[in-house]
């Protein structure tokens, strides 16, 4: 099934992603953000916070935004 995935990590992008039926948010996070800790991200599904074991549905809109980003003098 296909969902819209908006990754605000790094360069930031929005694209469709194929996920297997029964994939939870937590599993999808580990697939997409290698080495990342889910507690360091704001994860929203259809613009709402969801529990880690939320099972993704066809057409869901998933957003992952890091909460720890280093600013810099030279942008």
């Amino acid at each position, binding site marked *: 099934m296909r969902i819209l995935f*908006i990754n*605000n990590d790094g*360069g930031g992008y929005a694209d469709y992603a194929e996920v297997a039926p029964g994939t939870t948010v937590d599993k999808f996070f580990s697939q997409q953000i290698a080495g990342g800790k889910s507690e360091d991200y704001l994860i929203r599904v259809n613009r709402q916070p969801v529990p880690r074991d939320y099972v993704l549905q066809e057409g869901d809109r998933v957003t992952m935004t890091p909460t*720890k*980003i280093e*600013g*810099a*003098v*030279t942008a």
Partner: protein
Amino acid sequence: MEDELSGRRLWQVAGAIRDQLHAVRMNRFRDAQSQVQSLSSDMAELESVRRKLNLCVARGWAAAAGSLMEQATRLFRTLNYGSLEAEKAVGKPEVTVPNIRDILEELQQAEEEFEGLRYYPEDQILAIVTDGIELEGVYLGDFEVQLHIPALGDPSFRSIYRIVALDPHPSVRNEAVTHPHVNEERLCAGDAGAAIDAALAGGRVCDFFMLVRSVLTNYNRDSAYVTLEDWDGVTCHDCGSVIGGDDTYYCTSCDYEFCGECSSCCDHCDESTCLGCMETCRVCEDHVCSGCMTTCPECGERLCRRCREEARCPCLDEDPENENEEETHDNDSDRTESTAEGGETISAGINAHGDAQETPAAVGAEAAEEGGGEDRAPVHPDRLGEAAVLP
């Protein structure tokens, strides 16, 4: 005056954002259009050159044909560059303008995430307010992140968004720095820069605000306008008083910071130097930094570089040995020239102590060669007998 965003106003704001994103899309097309137009003009000029060249060849006008060849060469260069630029402009990624409902949902999400949105209709500024931010024990206050909607579609704006401290706790060192990563209300987004740009380009207003908040709630010590350690000023390394802003002087000699009372400027290079590192040249009595001081190679005493270069160390006046040595060196070089000119062998060298070694015979021959030694012999008559005689 700010407005509560609700109902119709929310739709209006969403519409304004969409209009700006549409303008961005149109700007991309305009840019491509301009590049293609420029390329097309160059190609038309090339066609004109082609026709003229045909005529020149047919009529045997060699000089005119040569001139056209030069013109064609220039055109090819322009076409190459123009072609690359046009390809770049046309190949820019497609800008997708979200529909107004998507933008509206973004605004509603932002309202929920930040417990309200602010809108300033006069300047078309959309804003959220962060909670009070404290980093590593330093309270910085709450910030308003202001998104200037007209700037979204107009690249001539200096910045699309500003970070305004509502309860400013700026650095003592620089009042324009209200956050380690905010200077003059501009955020240096660092690692979030690309994601923020992408969010704004896609009309993802809530993502934009969340990303900015993520930068504001974190601290990168290695790349801050003012580090939190120095936020409330620094302590003068000498007297211990707390100083900040323009009152801080960095000593380039010892790498510590000092107050104005405990530092001064080098008389020679103008570098800021603490009083402890400042030295007084015993010759010219100028106050100079350690970088402008040196040691006299003759007596080992400290003096400024300027005095050393000008050979003003008192030891050079006091020690006749040094004076004689210098003159001996002069004689050596003169003799070398004489040998070259006269073809005679003159024994001269430097012994282990650095003193000149020369043979009286050689000096006498030299003196005779140069017209009876009128210039040289009277200068150091007593010195000749002291010179080592080589076997």
